[in-house]
């Protein structure tokens, strides 16, 4: 009987704490949302499982220097390997055609960064330090890998909560955005039909990633890891001479690194780190950032309409958050409710991909100013 007692004392069961059990519930909730509700399953499923694993006592999967998940975290995230590789895949999947056909829509990708900076300001006002506030603000960009990239460098202790907030709200874009879109636009504005963009040549599509990489990396050097890989992936796609590399970046590589992204992010969320009042604030501020980003994008589109003869459907401003392609689909859906023959999807992809660039720039500017 004594031996059984000893065995029990060396098992993890003996060291379970109420906090760990709460984290199990959070892990189960994320796994449930991913499987049953299909909410960002590619990320929320491994994140949920990572949360579960790190809250199993004595497993030491996040023990510095030894734990398996710690190695994924250290070599994948702290070494800045995984987010740039994700961006390589995203670049290979991105078509810049809609931006090149209607270049002025690129500004909507900047307008939607208003939520990032306003939330940064509010978070700082609420007592977070500048680096924490920047990490929370970037959630408003609706770009998971960029949020993870910035959090790893600025506030690693907030990585898990910010990543979960970002991916959760990205999954909720169809619920969060439409009420704001209807509130800030009239039916007449939602019915505006976009003028067909010009035809974009193949040469322009090849030149764009090269020129954009040069300009943006020179302007904001700390954005280089993400921007460089994003544009390289896009160059693979548009060059049309490296089909195997394009396919690998879009499929195998992206899938593999997604696994190694989600697990360690979840594994940063142990009970000690996560069960704090400030995590609630992070989720609240993340939602605020998303809503403000949507609103500032819409308002910028309306402002551009005041200054231009060719009217833009202001709904396109909401696609400036970079949840690709969900935000563009939502724009199309809300536009079609007002005028079912108004086909906005292709136009909305312009600000949508511009939003990705805008968020990476915003992260790079935070790194420039705060490091």
């Amino acid at each position: 009987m004594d031996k059984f007692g000893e065995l029990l004392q060396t098992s993890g069961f003996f060291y379970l704490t109420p906090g760990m059990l709460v984290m199990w519930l959070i892990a189960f909730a994320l796994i449930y949302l991913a499987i049953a509700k299909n909410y960002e399953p590619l990320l929320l499923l491994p994140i949920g499982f990572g949360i579960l694993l790190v809250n199993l006592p004595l497993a030491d999967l996040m023990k510095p220097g030894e734990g398996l998940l710690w190695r994924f975290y250290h070599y994948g995230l702290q070494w800045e390997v995984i987010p740039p590789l994700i961006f390589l895949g995203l670049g290979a999947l991105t078509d810049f055609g809609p931006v090149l056909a209607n270049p002025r829509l690129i500004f909507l990708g900047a307008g939607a960064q208003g939520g990032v900076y306003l939330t940064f300001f509010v978070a700082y006002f609420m007592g977070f330090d500048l680096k924490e506030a920047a990490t929370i603000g970037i959630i408003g960009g609706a770009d998971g890998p960029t949020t993870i990239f910035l959090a790893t460098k600025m506030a690693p202790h907030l990585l898990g909560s910010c990543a979960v907030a970002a991916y959760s709200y990205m999954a909720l874009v169809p619920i969060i955005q439409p009420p704001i879109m209807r509130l800030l636009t009239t039916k007449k504005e939602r019915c505006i039909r976009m003028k067909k963009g010009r035809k974009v040549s193949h040469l322009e599509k090849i030149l764009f990633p090269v020129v954009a990489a040069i300009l943006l990396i020179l302007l904001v050097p700390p954005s280089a890891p993400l921007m460089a890989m994003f544009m390289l992936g896009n160059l693979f796609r548009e060059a049309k001479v490296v089909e195997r590399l394009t396919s690998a970046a879009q499929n195998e590589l992206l899938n593999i690194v997604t696994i190694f992204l989600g697990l360690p992010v979840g594994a940063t969320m142990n009970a000690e780190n996560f069960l704090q009042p400030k995590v609630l604030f992070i989720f609240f501020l993340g939602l605020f950032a998303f809503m403000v980003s949507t609103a500032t994008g819409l308002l910028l589109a309306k402002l551009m309409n005041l200054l231009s003869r060719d009217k833009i459907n202001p709904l396109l401003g909401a696609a400036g958050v970079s949840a690709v392609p969900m935000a563009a689909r939502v724009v199309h859906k809300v536009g079609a409710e007002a005028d079912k023959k108004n086909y906005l999807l292709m136009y909305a992809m312009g600000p949508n991909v511009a939003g990705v660039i805008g968020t990476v720039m915003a992260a790079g500017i935070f790194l420039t100013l705060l490091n």
Partner: protein
Amino acid sequence: MNQAIGIFVVGLGGVFVGMALLYIAIRVVALVVERIGAGKEA
């Protein structure tokens, strides 16, 4: 607080400057490609 205000203004302004640069680049590239195309046709 002053530092936060500075980051807010410079940050948002910086993103717009970046987009403006891209906008100009897209326009210039389109123009150059068009000229090259016209030159070839001629």
